[in-house]
């Protein structure tokens, strides 16, 4: 296998909402994942979720459930599926799909109010998805 055989957003093979294969073939970095989750133009997961170990990140939202102990509730494959496209697990969810780049209504170029560029990228890169999954796997009770 080539070292960087990236799975593109159109190639995802969901099984019951889960994605068994790594998107990059590289291990995720939990510390990098934590940063993605707390940073607004990136994952900004804290906008909607409380993540108790990130006590230093102010103003965690409660639109979604607390992520405490989430690794006890879901497998790695399920977590990868939820982060890539939560709507495949939770039908009609308000949780955004982080690894998708088409099928939108009036997509913008980030938060600029300008229309999206023709080569709109997913909100997170394949490696960022893997990093977030690696961090989520540390959330055990």
């Amino acid at each position, binding site marked *: 296998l080539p070292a960087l055989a990236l799975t593109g957003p159109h190639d995802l093979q969901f099984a019951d909402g889960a994605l068994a294969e790594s998107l990059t073939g590289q291990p995720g970095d939990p510390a990098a994942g934590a940063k993605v989750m707390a940073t607004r133009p990136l994952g900004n997961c804290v906008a909607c979720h409380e993540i108790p170990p990130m006590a230093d990140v102010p103003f965690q939202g409660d639109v979604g459930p607390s992520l405490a102990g989430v690794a006890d509730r879901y497998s790695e494959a399920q977590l990868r599926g939820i982060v890539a496209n939560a709507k495949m697990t939770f039908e009609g969810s308000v949780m955004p799909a982080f690894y998708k780049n088409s099928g*939108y*209504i009036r997509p913008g170029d980030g938060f600029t109010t300008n229309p999206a560029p023709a080569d709109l990228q997913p909100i997170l890169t394949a490696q960022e998805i893997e990093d977030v999954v690696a961090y989520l796997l540390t959330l055990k009770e």
Partner: protein
Amino acid sequence: LATGPALADPHPDAELVINDEIELATRAPAPDHLKEVFDTVYSGWLFRTDETRALEMDDFDNPAMVFADMGVDLWNAADGSEGKSCASCHEGIESMKGVRASMPKINPAGNDIWSVENFVNTCRTDRMGAEAWKWNSPQMKQMTSAISLQSRGMPISVKIDGPAEPYWEQGKEIYYTRYGQLELACASCHEVNMGKMIRADHLSQGQINGFPTYRLADAGIVSIHQRFSGCIRDTRGEPFEAGSPEFRALELYVASRGMTLPVEGLAVRQ
């Protein structure tokens, strides 16, 4: 963390009384067309902090009032080739009582839905020979502030049937459309998650009875369409233009969701 159920709901018993005398309802039975969604509609005032709420309770503290005063100055100032002011035809600004509460509404020609801004600009261009103001220009926001204040306390009373109905339907469809790369509709935040915290923001029902509003974060007046635009931008979306047919239809629909709430006549929000 400053989150959790204690802060989650609209304030249970705060009452909005301005200058110790003007009582404005901030909770009201939902209008009939919304009964399947909410029993009660709430002013955005009930979702703000004690400090922000207090600013709206005294007109001397309310930072929006200076903009309304500037609007009254504009009302009395002649402009344009005809040498007329608004007062030349309408007399005192009090003549605008009820106007904010009825907007947006079908235009005199009967072929479009107009916001108060459209009426103002038509008087400027067709009756005064003056230039139209840009939708979100300081002058327009000062004028709409002065006009809104005249309806303070009057329940929103937009017409949603007859010729207004197709616009209302269009606005409703927009309200439930999931825009942007985050795929969120107005309803995703202001209906499904009303009362929840999204990062530092306490989600209200997204009512417009307090508009135009002084926003502390902008240190200035925010128009209805500016607020809509900011909310769609926050979905990583491309908003419609201020004054566009889409935003005027959406304004009618959102106004109708608060039909039992009174016009606040210049709210203060964070």
